[in-house]
């Protein structure tokens, strides 16, 4: 039986590491910023849940500040231009859906795709992070698990009405997240984050969210396969 290889020590100060970190850190900051904006937009669409959504947006803003501190700690300037382009397609789809009042798409993009992407990335990052970033990220993950996922619960409560909308939003947006994962594969590898572990963790979180909403394993497998079309 083959054996596990001993993990290598990461040099967090090397130029290669810091270069990759400038993009990954920016993506995380931008992701939290998108989440902040998206929850505020959702608060307008769902006035009955306004207070809860504003509270969530504040939490995401707090997370953003934490990740900005991680960049400063390593003396890395996050490449925010890269991150904005990275999120552009998903961002555009959310904006369009919000303008049309398409709640299902907005919730799929923010509460399912972005949240699951974030939690997967943080879970995979924690074991390989520098000590400062590890502590910050652990705090963020704790927050994320603490709050009941708003979108999941909302879609669960309104499953029959929005089922089709969720499926359509999944088909349109899952390929985008797949492309995004592929795009950062090399940078993530420098941070010792393996793409296959990241994809697996994302699919676990995403599948669990879909199951909680009311989809069967068969539905989830069918919906997940859209990612492969990226």
């Amino acid at each position, binding site marked *: 039986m083959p054996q596990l290889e001993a993990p290598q020590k990461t040099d967090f100060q090397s130029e290669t590491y810091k270069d990759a970190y400038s993009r990954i850190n920016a993506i995380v900051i931008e992701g939290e910023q998108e989440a902040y904006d998206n929850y505020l937009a959702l608060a307008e669409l769902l006035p009955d849940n306004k207070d809860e959504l504003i509270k969530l947006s504040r939490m995401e803003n707090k997370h953003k500040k934490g990740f900005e501190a991680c960049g400063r700690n390593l003396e890395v300037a996050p490449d925010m231009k890269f991150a904005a382009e990275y999120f552009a397609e998903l961002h555009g789809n959310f904006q369009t859906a919000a303008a049309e009042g398409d709640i299902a798409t907005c919730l799929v993009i923010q509460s399912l795709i972005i949240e699951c992407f974030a939690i997967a990335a943080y879970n995979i990052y924690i074991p390989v992070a520098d000590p400062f970033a590890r502590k910050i990220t652990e705090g963020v993950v704790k927050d994320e698990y603490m709050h009941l996922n708003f979108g999941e619960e909302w879609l669960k409560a309104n499953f029959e009405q929005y089922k089709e909308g969720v499926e359509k939003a999944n088909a349109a947006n899952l390929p985008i997240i797949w492309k995004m994962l592929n795009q950062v594969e090399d940078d993530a590898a420098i941070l010792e984050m*393996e793409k296959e572990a990241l994809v697996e963790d994302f699919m676990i979180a995403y599948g669990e969210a879909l199951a909680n909403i009311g989809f069967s394993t068969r539905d989830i497998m069918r919906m997940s396969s859209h990612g492969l079309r990226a």
Partner: protein
Amino acid sequence: MFGLIGHLTSLEHAQAAARDMGYPEYADEGLDFWCSAPPLMLDQEITVKSLTGQVIKGRYVESCFLPEMLATRRIKAATRKIINAMAHAQKHGIDITALGGFSSIIFENFNLKQIERIRNIRLEFQRFTTGNTHTAYIICRQVEQASAKLGIDLSKATIAVCGATGDIGSAVCRWMNAHTDVQDLLLIARDRERLNALQTELGRGRILGLDEALPQADIVVWVASMPKGVEIDAESLKKPCLLIDGGYPKNLDTKVQAPGVYVLKGGIVEHSLDIDWPLMQLVNMDAPGRQLFACFAESMLLEFEKWHTNFSWGRNQITVEKMEKSGAFRSSMASNRS
């Protein structure tokens, strides 16, 4: 609720299963895809009814592990599959789950008990069982019953146990030593230190290399698991020779074919339970309605007994008493046909 964590036997098998189950999108994906696939709990509940009418329910979790992951050294992927499948089963509130096929081997070999937390889940190991106690028990009963049928008298017979120091192998040795009057035990394994310890514990047994041992054996119990299987020269075996294939994959019947050599799939339970589970053919049983991996049967037995505990856990902890208990569970269900 009982659970079964299983996996398919090869990439080719996985691709065919995806096609058969109506997922053509996945049918052409290669090993990379399976390395990043999440565990899946099949939607359909498994209902098991004993002859006494007791009904239990269970779920099957496909870990998406494939033996090629070990063969190509994708070790991290292999370990993730097992831990993630366990977390998935626990998250669904399953009381007792068997780690089928390579799952328990990977868990033990890579010392996965050190991973107590996965995401927001603290793994509760008492909810899992390797199923090895029942597998070892079934293999021993197969040896006793099949040898009698073939006219091999155990008191004059030599049994070679290949993989003797493993969890199942050492249990088989203990049983044969305590429960039968077998004349000679040949102990085959790679680790000399463990072999010496086993020999001391048994107070008997000869330590031999595979090539030296096989021609001397009337009965070969094969319980070594290897990602690629093994080659055995059928000509070198005694005639008659009973070969119990209890390792993984169970493919010795196709590899060792000679007159006088009888190969039995080991650790497979012949049962009379009424199991409503159309997906059983997925795991390549000869008679899907009447056969079951013994490790899976262990989780069902524990569920019937409402004994939600890791009955089989850790390496080389299987005692003859536990194996007897495992057999008694079976009898109490009045379903023992093997």
